[in-house]
């Protein structure tokens, strides 16, 4: 038998409210398609496009602990909605980068400072992370950004201004930059 929706929802929110989860996740709708969003008690740890929740849950369990449960993530959902409606330019969400390697974390922290509606290049981001020759490595970090959109890797473009690449596909990168008015 299936558990009635209401009872199921009550259990899931009770589990989250009791602070028993290593990771809470949800799938939220967006103009770019459904987004998988996951958070630890420290902050958002994962956003992915074209979600495959079961595989994501396995991966999160390996990295953060087995107590992974789908439950409503109100804060992230609201901020993402506001962002996509053009009513929010900066996210107030905490981000959990504890599972990122030190260099990646450094680069992602610099990335978080790239303002809404602007772009930078892989090379400039490498300079800001004090690894000026590491543009390619920065590209890899962008490609594996665990929290796209909130950490705006879509704002990082090639040295000629070409969009170059995006973990979620170039089409999505273009749409995000248009939304922010960085592309016409």
């Amino acid at each position, binding site marked *: 038998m299936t*558990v009635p929706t209401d*009872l199921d929802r009550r259990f899931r929110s009770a589990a989250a409210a009791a602070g028993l989860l290593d990771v809470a996740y949800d799938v939220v709708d967006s103009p770019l398609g459904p987004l998988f969003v996951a958070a630890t008690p420290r902050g958002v740890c994962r956003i992915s496009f074209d979600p495959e929740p079961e595989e994501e849950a396995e991966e999160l*369990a390996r990295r953060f602990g087995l107590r992974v*449960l*789908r439950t409503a993530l109100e804060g992230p959902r609201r901020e993402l909605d506001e962002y996509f409606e053009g009513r929010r330019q900066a996210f107030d969400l905490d981000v959990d980068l504890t599972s990122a390697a030190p260099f990646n974390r450094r680069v992602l922290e610099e990335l978080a400072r790239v303002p809404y509606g602007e772009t930078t290049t892989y090379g400039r981001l490498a300079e800001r992370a004090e690894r000026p020759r590491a543009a390619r490595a920065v590209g890899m970090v962008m490609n594996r950004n665990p929290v796209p959109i909130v950490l705006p890797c879509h704002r990082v473009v090639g040295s000629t201004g070409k969009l170059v690449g995006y973990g979620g596909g170039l089409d999505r990168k273009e749409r995000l930059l248009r939304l922010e008015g960085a592309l016409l």
Partner: protein
Amino acid sequence: MMDDVAIPPFERFYETWSGEILAFLRRRLGRAEAEDAFQETFLKALRAYDRLEHGRDLRAWAYTIAERVAIDVHRRRSVPATPEEPSGREDSRPAYAEIEHLAGQLPATERAAVVLRYGYDRSYAQIGTALGSSADAARQAASSGVRRLRRKELQ
């Protein structure tokens, strides 16, 4: 290796067994009380989840927790509303009540079999179904569980 069955993310454990456990609790307690018992069962499972050592017998483990929750509910029900009034019937499970405090030390399958057999008078066929094994295997698990408990009691 048999001993290394990976423990799945809690979500998968919950999705796999929650429907069956709810049906089980409804049979035990009726619809209304089953809902709270369901929530309590899975919250208990969640609290204990990071202490699991392997992913074997998770179904039996879930049933064991659900049984204990159901036993608690029954116990609360059987507390007489007014102490002066003699209770209409004796607890039909005195023998089990005496060994129950030890049952937690049994391996999961034996524990579930003992709880279901002596705590709930389930038939071995029903216990076999609950544990995903045969009636014979359920009988063996219950009897080796009881033998183990008797040894513990004598200690």
